[in-house]
């Protein structure tokens, strides 16, 4: 699972948990997504592995419905 959020500069950041993380993905999002930014928890397959256009990735903020960074 990954956590996606939209940064204040409009770019898209993707959070991947470490092997040592023992909490839930929602707990990780609350901790590691910047305060006030909306996030979405998604399957790994949702995130492209082709990084040819990584800087051009976009996400509609309306789709970030799983919570807000604490």
């Amino acid at each position, binding site marked *: 699972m*990954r*956590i996606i959020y939209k*940064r204040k500069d409009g*770019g898209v*950041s*993707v*959070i*991947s*948990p*470490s*092997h*040592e*993380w023992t909490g839930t993905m929602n707990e*990780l999002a609350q*901790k*590691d997504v910047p305060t006030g930014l909306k996030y979405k928890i998604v399957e*790994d397959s949702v*995130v492209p*592995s082709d*990084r040819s256009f*990584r*800087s051009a990735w976009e996400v509609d903020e309306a789709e970030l419905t799983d919570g807000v960074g604490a």
Partner: protein
Amino acid sequence: MPTLKMGSTTVLTDTTLANAVQDNLTRLGTVTTGTFNGTLDSTTFSGDAGQRTAKAWCNFSGTGTPSIRASFNCSSLTDVDVGRWEVNYTTPMSSQYHAPVSAQGGSVVHAMVVNEDQDAGAGKCEIGNYRWDTGAYNDTGSVYVIVFGD
């Protein structure tokens, strides 16, 4: 005869050895008598031992879907953009003024940029893999981060 105890159990009765072990334990800064209780935990060290010990480290892949291979005190890795990542700590440092150090396993034309603006805060560090020959950030397969601080 001096003895060294762990809790209520006597573990060493030889005078010379007991004194030597106690002396070395005392140097950690957390044991000041002949009796040691509790568990040594590198996340809760205080004093000199804490400052001399890495508070976090990780080895991660920065290509494909960036992810951490192995780590200590790192909850997650944030893929920010091409050649730019953030390492998030499980237990934060005491302030933003800690000392992350990074290296990468690729070409010598890369330079690691760490906490460029000093504004990452106490809970994470920002890592960038900058190619000075092209003037741009680049992904790379192996990135190493060690963090010292209070």
